[in-house]
């Protein structure tokens, strides 16, 4: 059980690190998705530890939320690409200060 949690933790860290180091917005989005799914995995692990369906229910919620977030995110990314012709997050960082 702890091993599975550890796996979730590792996934989460991977996502976290790549959000921080990636410069392409799409990859950042994907990394965030990985983090979310890691959280989902952790929920399922927790749910199975306590033999409750709650963990899986939460996972479904996470799934939904991630989906909604991705659809908005993709639309935004399209828009950004349309305007800036790049997906580099540094290039898209016009507001400073």
């Amino acid at each position, binding site marked *: 059980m702890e091993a599975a949690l550890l796996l979730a933790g590792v996934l989460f860290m991977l996502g976290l690190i790549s959000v921080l180091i990636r410069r392409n917005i799409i990859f950042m989005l994907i990394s965030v998705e990985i983090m979310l799914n890691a959280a989902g995995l952790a929920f399922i692990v927790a749910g*199975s530890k306590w033999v409750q*369906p709650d963990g899986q229910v939460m996972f*479904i919620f996470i799934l939904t939320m991630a989906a909604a977030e991705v659809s908005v995110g*993709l*639309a935004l990314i399209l828009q950004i690409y349309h305007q800036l012709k790049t997906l580099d997050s540094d290039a898209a960082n016009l507001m400073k200060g």
Partner: protein
Amino acid sequence: MDASEVNNVPLWPLLVYGAIVLSLVGVILGLSYVLGQRGKGRAMTEPYEGGIVSEGSARIRFSSQFYMVAMLFVIFDVETVFILSWAIAFRELGWYGYAGVAIFMVMLVVVLVYEWRMGALDFGPDGKKILAAYKRMQKPAF
């Protein structure tokens, strides 16, 4: 949802099966690589685009309609997840659950109606509009 039931079904056949399938595919690809002839044709290094010489990059931009489909899919497929979880337990939930899902469905339908009206479900050009425009164009000629 009963945890004990899962354990009754042996899972190893699935794994064995999967392993066999994977190796089979690997073998097929490997074999064809080993067995296949080698050689270079005159136009083999160019993309085949119906016999016409390829022009420009293939990384062309697409209609945002495709992204719209992706979004629609995401919305409705995720709704399916909820319906799935209801479907498996709907006998226990009874009419109460039915009401819940009915509300959920109503929301879905409202979303669908909205998208329909917004033109999110119109793929490709609207033939009637084009026809109307064409007719307008033609009119002065008569």
